[in-house]
């Protein structure tokens, strides 16, 4: 990938991460605390963490075990948190 493309994709991901963070905060500030909101916030957090691993840690460019190391960690954690919050 050329450096210009890398700069561009990193910048797009950066803006997306900022927007998702601000949106999460806005939802928390304006809406009542409900389990559906908590699950929505968890899903957004998992998406943000996945974007960081894919584009900032560059796992997108890797094959095999390391490619899935962080996403598998994320999925297991998300399932655990989901179960704990919906129990």
């Amino acid at each position, binding site marked *: 990938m050329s*450096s210009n493309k*890398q*700069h561009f994709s*990193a*910048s797009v*991901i*950066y803006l997306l*991460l*900022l927007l998702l*963070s*601000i949106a*999460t*905060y806005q939802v*928390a*500030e304006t809406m009542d*605390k409900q389990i559906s909101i*908590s699950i929505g*916030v*968890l899903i*957004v*957090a*998992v998406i*943000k*963490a996945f974007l*960081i*691993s894919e*584009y*900032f*840690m*560059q*796992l997108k*460019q*890797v*094959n*095999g075990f*390391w*490619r899935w*190391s*962080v996403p598998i*960690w994320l999925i*297991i*954690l998300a399932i*655990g*948190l989901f179960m*704990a*919050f919906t*129990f």
Partner: protein
Amino acid sequence: MNKKYPSGDLAVWIFIMAELLVFAIFFLAYAITRIDHVELFNTYQSTLDRTSALWNTLALISASYFMVRAVISIKVSQPEKAFKWALVALVMCMVFLTIKTLEFSHHISQGVTLSTNTFYMFYLSLSLFHYMHVWLGLIVLGVIARNIAKGRYSADKCTGAESGANYWHMVDLVWVILFPLVYIM
């Protein structure tokens, strides 16, 4: 073409995975303990400064992005640009530490300790554990910036910078989960 191993030193990746495992255990312990104390957790969660946490989130994400730019600049042989990006990443790291230190001092002035209640025990220990990682990140980013300034990295030889940047991304990634879990959910 995809690579077999991620960028940076493999030993640092093993360290990162170990750290992620420890944080996951911490997060799950928090969530499982919350099951029996939902009201207590909701009540004391509302005493936390969510706005400061948002600014901290933006600071960490920005620092991560600036480190991505620094590493890319090293790889295209632009050390001056790389140094500037590493410096702004350092500033963002200091912004996080300043806000978090003020948050901790506010809690201490209110008499909050680890033994105040179960929520604060988790909140303080999780936050402090992450806070220590940010301090280590500050040192790592400082060393990277110094090495860039001294011309120790080149397009072919930047494993140290990549490893340090990956450590920093891990600190950011953990906060991205910690922020909603402790402050919002």
